């Protein structure tokens, strides 16, 4: 029954399964003359790259248009954001692995396409955009630290792929989530699961697995976590400084270090120049140490104050206790504080009240704990630290929000229902043998 089901599902859901390619006699290699070559001009003004060459495995040719589209978009946007790349020809080569330590070859973009590639899962486009970004970060600008080049390329591709997804499907998002079956042979895009650029787009899951990863460790298995952490740091900068300031900084870095080597300190100084502020407080912690950021709302208490009157009515006292559980500090400035005053206001704290009012306070994030007290005409509903999700390096975002009451059933019930149904499905599947 299971075998029949798998077979029928395969034929119904993946029509491509019927179009079997002839089996080759030897392994397909990029240098193999069986790679299909497609040449496409890039008819866009102000772009250094003039032509695009796709060298694809015969069974991946069906994705040539998608790859070319992603390449065009990437080259156009990177040129606009970072400045022109003088590579006259860009060759996208299928089946090549990105070399572990060597810088990317000039004009060569390695990708690993797959025969089955769901239309709304953008993993293919992400590979193309990432590879082309490396022509700037690591190619045009030699980057001393691998993680910085990887992180910048990862961040850049997340922006490009979001644009492509938005244009193709008219939805703001990065990609649909994907699951893989049969030992990763069969991918399936889940229509309900829309990934965001700031999470799925920069592979935040890899960062979450190893938040204290040593960025300079040479271990190749750590590379995804290093890349994700660096990309999360750059995205944090984007959210803190704003895209225009960050983009100015990236463009300035490309201009300053074109044909030269850029260090993390050079990058920090360049971004600081572009944003007209000192960013060493962030770079010293995010890039130079393995310390982690973890801020939380540790307590939220709201009680009626019988002896007080707010706006002529009842008054409620709300106490919010903030916590810092990681050693890294997101302060906003390198200027040391002068007690009792804080220095910096990088972290926002928002308290929402039952009457619809909100209060936003700021914290320099240095102390291990801080208590805020509000007197308001309504009890507090919830408190959030970093409500705009600026600090993407925060290792635990679950403790960033606290409700005064219990979690409303309807907020989490869809997950409970899905999980219960899935467990029932599991029971019936294993029940086949019993």
């Amino acid at each position, binding site marked *: *029954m*299971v*075998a*029949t*089901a*798998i*077979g*029928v599902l*395969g034929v119904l*859901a993946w029509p*491509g*399964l019927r179009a*079997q*390619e002839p*089996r*080759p006699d*030897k*392994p397909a290699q990029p240098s193999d003359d069986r790679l299909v070559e497609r040449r496409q001009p890039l008819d866009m003004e102000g772009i250094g790259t003039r032509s695009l060459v796709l060298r694809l495995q*015969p*069974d991946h040719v069906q994705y040539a248009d998608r790859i070319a589209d992603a390449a065009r978009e990437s080259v156009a946007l990177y040129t606009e954001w970072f400045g022109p790349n003088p590579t006259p020809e860009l060759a996208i080569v299928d089946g090549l692995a990105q070399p572990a330590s060597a810088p990317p070859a000039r004009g060569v973009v390695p990708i690993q396409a797959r*025969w089955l590639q769901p239309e709304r899962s953008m993993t293919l486009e992400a590979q193309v955009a990432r590879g082309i970004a490396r022509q700037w970060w690591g190619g045009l600008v030699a980057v001393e630290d691998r993680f910085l080049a990887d992180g910048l390329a990862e961040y850049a591709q997340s922006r490009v792929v979001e644009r492509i997804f938005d244009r193709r499907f008219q939805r703001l998002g990065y990609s649909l*989530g994907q*699951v893989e079956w*049969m030992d990763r*042979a069969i991918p399936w895009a*889940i229509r*309900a*699961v*829309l990934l965001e650029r700031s*999470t799925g787009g920069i592979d*935040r899951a890899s960062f979450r*697995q190893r938040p204290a990863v040593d960025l300079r460790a040479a271990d190749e298995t750590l590379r995804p976590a290093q890349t994700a952490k660096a990309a999360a740091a750059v995205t944090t900068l984007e959210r803190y400084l704003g895209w225009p300031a960050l983009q100015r900084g990236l463009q300035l870095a490309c201009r300053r270090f074109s044909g030269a080597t850029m260090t993390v300190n050079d990058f920090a100084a360049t971004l600081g120049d572009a944003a007209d502020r000192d960013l060493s407080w962030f770079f010293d912690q995010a890039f130079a140490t393995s310390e982690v950021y973890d801020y939380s709302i540790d307590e939220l208490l709201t009680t009626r104050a019988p002896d007080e009157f707010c706006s002529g009515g009842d008054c409620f006292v709300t106490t919010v206790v903030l916590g810092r559980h990681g050693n890294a500090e997101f302060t906003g400035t390198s200027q040391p504080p002068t007690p009792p005053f804080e220095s910096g206001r990088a972290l926002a704290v928002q308290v929402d009240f039952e009457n619809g009012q909100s209060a936003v306070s700021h914290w320099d994030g240095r102390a291990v704990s801080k208590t805020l007290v509000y007197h308001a005409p309504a009890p507090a509903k*919830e408190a959030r630290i970093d409500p705009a999700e600026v600090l993407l390096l925060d290792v*635990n*975002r*679950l403790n960033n*929000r606290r409700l005064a009451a219990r*979690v*409303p059933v309807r907020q*989490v019930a*869809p*997950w*409970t*229902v*899905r*999980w*219960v*149904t*899935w*467990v*029932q*499905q*599991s029971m*019936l*599947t*294993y*029940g*086949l*043998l*019993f």
Partner: protein
Amino acid sequence: MAALSACVTGFIAAMRAPWILAGCYLLTLVVVAPLGVALQRELPPPPPPSAADAAAPQRPNIDWLDEVAMRSTGPAASLSPAIVGVAGAIDPVDRFLDGRLPEWPVAAAVAAFLLAWSAMWGGIIVRLDANRRVGWRNCWTASHRAAGGVLVLAVVGILGYVALSLSLRPVLFGPVYQLLTRGSLDSTAVLCRVGLTMVYGASLMVWGQVLDYARIEAVLDARRPADAIRAALRFAAQRPWAVMAVATTFGFVFALLVGAYGAVEFVPGGSVPRLSRLILIGQAMIVVRLSLRLGLAGAQIRLRRHSLG
């Protein structure tokens, strides 16, 4: 023709026993309900939706889900995107074929269900064989009488599954897969993987059929487990095509059912349904799937009866 006739009459017999279906369905709910309540209590609040999305049903936030699963030691540890929509129906089948055990809360629920399910088989088979009301007392007596033998068969079933997972599977997806895909293109490798999965699935199906017929023999002929397995093997060897045709027919219908379940996601609003629709669609799928399982049992009983003349 005998197989097709057995499929139709067996399914009708199963549908004529709605209390059996209701009982089995309730069993799945009773087993999973405590874990569901524990999960509901364990889940922290998800990030609030943006103002633009506030009115629409909440779209799954996978970053939040991943964070919850990573930090949980309870049922929430098994949360993943694979439980969303049609993936939730295919994921257990994929795990079953891959020999991957589910996380402990799910494994515990599955084990509890299988224990109770095995104990109920006696009554189910007697009711489907009679194709008329036999009364709760007779069902209970049959279940009670056959429980020991059916449980032994369940243990044999597990051992057979483990043996196939540890012997045939590594061979198929190790040396055989390597041999077939050496120097091949990606598409060929995928097709080989699908083909070998079907071969392995077919071996599990054959084993499942032997156990099903052994269970029927154990209940209806009051045979000991070893004798029941011998009788089932004899029966399957005498009528291999009919036995396979019955199983394949229900497998095909199951595949269509999963396809239809998946198609719901393409209906406008179907990918992120409202809570009531989410419950309705999911539970309807479970009921239909249970109907098919009971229908298969009914068809097997009809085929056996037909063969006995």
